[in-house]
């Protein structure tokens, strides 16, 4: 019985060594190869001084190399921290400094970028290149000779020279951290959600069972590693000895190409945010392809507009449609299966009921339990799938992981999701909205406060407010209102944001006001601005 995520791999490699574990187009790694390569990565990390409990960064797009890196880091006893190669450098260095990353796993193309981060992250001492490369060429590195403070670069050839036997698991237990996922933070800096092996396995075991994954399945999620949807394809596939298929980035962008790829790569289980599916049904020419092998479609991360879900279900009437719900802090905590044959939905589908070994309940403002349709309250979650807390922030952890208000006999923690819900007639939870300033865009969490903090970082910004504008395709678009001192252009504002924030957090609309309107209590009048 696996109690550490990497044991899913060693078990599958022992059971079915020749089955494909990761496929990228025509190429694939078998479970045996993935197991051996990740052993070598683990040994290379240990040789660089990585000890159990250390945080190791992974700076790579989703690929076979990234999966080797994930398992390599775990086998070294480390906790991995995904770093999005597309994020601006200041955000990456903030995450690396916060989590104390001294060693980064990069691929051929991102190794130079990783070395470049050392200027702002003095503790970075080694960059270990992971593989296989499979056509990802090395990016042009810096021309200058390495300086005395530059990190050691361990090339893939050197990793392959390591013995490929397993590193002993040591004293690792399931409460140890497996990974830290950074999400938007309302005070202006991203916060690290700590997930243990036990919490992740609680989700992985439920997810593999809920979808009925088998060795025959080919599973795909286009979500990058830093997005918690990737936990499903990276680990649940492995639990079931299924094959994780990586969609080429260029293919995922072009809906009809994506539909063609799903047909040719015989994808049987798909997991993504709704906006990708909306693009697929709107621009994918789905009738032109044979998608009869696509048996299960899972969506999560934001509300799926009913119109587009209707369209997708009409195009793929044979498939199961599952709505999975859960903040990163809880993995997936509730789920809903859209009944087969459903047509003409006029409202978003419910978020459903709690997953196995998880409990979800909602608390009204008066402190009672939401127990019937019409009641409204905040959703709380308890169970072994919960995060351990926020890295280095016990105060924030204490505000979000709170005592279960309905358990007086002993201490027990529950996570406050901040999501307002009600119940439908069948006892399913229905999502109503947020309590705070968090919005979703393409499934990503955006704390409006983090965008506002970035705007205030510009010397000419006197006041700034960011508001969400609902958008069918994106979930939300971001509208910034700014009162500036002196001359400030929209281009300058956007350029400033792009240097500090990931693309999905950069405002879509920038409007200038002489002064921002105030309420009678002197606060910026967000409601008035939202109505303009």
């Amino acid at each position, binding site marked *: 019985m696996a109690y550490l995520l990497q044991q899913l791999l060693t078990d599958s490699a022992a059971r079915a060594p020749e089955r494909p574990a990761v496929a990228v187009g025509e190429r694939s790694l078998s479970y045996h190869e993935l197991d051996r390569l990740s052993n070598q990565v683990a040994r290379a990390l240990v040789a660089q001084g990585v000890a159990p409990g250390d945080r190791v960064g992974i700076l790579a797009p989703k690929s076979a190399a990234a999966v080797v890196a994930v398992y390599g880091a775990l086998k070294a006893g480390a906790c991995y921290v995904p770093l999005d190669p*597309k994020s601006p450098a200041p955000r990456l260095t903030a995450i690396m400094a916060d989590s104390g990353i001294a060693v980064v796993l990069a691929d051929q193309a991102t190794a130079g970028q990783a070395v470049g981060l050392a200027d702002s992250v003095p503790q970075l001492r080694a960059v270990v290149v992971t593989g296989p490369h499979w056509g990802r060429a090395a990016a042009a590195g810096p021309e200058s000779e390495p300086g005395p403070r530059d990190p050691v670069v361990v090339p893939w050839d050197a990793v392959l020279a390591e013995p490929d036997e397993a590193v002993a698991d040591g004293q690792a237990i399931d409460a140890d951290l497996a990974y830290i996922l950074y999400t938007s933070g309302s005070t202006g800096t991203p916060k690290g959600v700590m997930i243990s092996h036990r919490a992740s396995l609680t989700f992985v075991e439920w997810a593999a069972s809920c979808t009925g994954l088998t060795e025959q399945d080919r599973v795909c999620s286009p979500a990058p590693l830093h997005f918690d949807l990737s936990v499903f394809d990276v680990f649940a596939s492995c639990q079931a000895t299924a094959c994780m298929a990586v969609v080429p980035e*260029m293919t*995922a*962008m*072009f*809906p*009809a*190409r994506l539909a063609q790829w799903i047909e040719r790569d015989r994808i049987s289980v798909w997991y993504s945010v709704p906006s*990708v599916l909306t*693009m697929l049904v709107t*621009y*994918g*020419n789905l009738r*032109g392809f044979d998608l009869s092998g696509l048996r299960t479609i899972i969506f999560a991360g934001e509300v799926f507009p009913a119109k587009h879900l209707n369209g997708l279900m009409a195009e793929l009437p044979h498939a199961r449609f599952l709505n999975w719900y859960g903040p990163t802090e809880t993995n997936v905590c509730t789920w809903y299966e859209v009944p087969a044959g459903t047509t003409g939905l006029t409202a978003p589908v419910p978020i459903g009921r709690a997953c196995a070994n998880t409990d979800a309940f909602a608390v009204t403002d008066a402190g009672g339990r939401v127990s019937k349709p019409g009641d409204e309250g905040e959703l709380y979650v308890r169970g072994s799938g919960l995060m351990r807390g926020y890295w280095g922030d016990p105060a924030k952890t204490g505000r979000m992981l709170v005592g279960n208000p309905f358990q007086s006999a002993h201490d027990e923690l529950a996570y406050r999701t901040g999501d307002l819900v009600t119940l439908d007639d069948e006892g399913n939870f229905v999502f109503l909205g947020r309590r705070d300033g968090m919005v979703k865009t*393409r499934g990503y969490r955006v704390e409006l406060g983090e965008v506002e903090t970035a705007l205030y970082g510009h010397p000419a910004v006197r006041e700034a407010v960011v508001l969400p504008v609902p958008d069918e*395709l*994106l979930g939300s678009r971001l509208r910034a209102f700014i009162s500036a001192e002196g001359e400030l252009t929209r*281009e300058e504002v956007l*350029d400033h944001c*792009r*240097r500090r924030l990931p*693309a*999905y957090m*950069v405002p879509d609309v920038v409007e200038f006001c002489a002064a921002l309107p105030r309420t009678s209590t002197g606060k910026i009048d967000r409601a008035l601005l939202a109505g303009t």
Partner: protein
Amino acid sequence: MEAVINDYISRELVQDASLLPLENTTQLLETGILDSLSLLRLVIFVQEQFGIVVDDLDLVPEHFASVDDICSYLRSVSGGKAGQASARG
């Protein structure tokens, strides 16, 4: 037409300022200027600006690799119409 599209991409879609000024031959996909989101914004802009409809099956990498490629594609579907619109805008 090249100028209108180059200007739109430069103003709205380029995240990395080191890629500016944008050449009409700059590889929009390899450099990551176009991703799934920015591609869709560009398609909507092009449709509104030039009054054409980009067919599902025309939404392929070959047509969106560079500003020049976008313009040759647009001319191939609706040369006269697109030319007029670009002269106005």
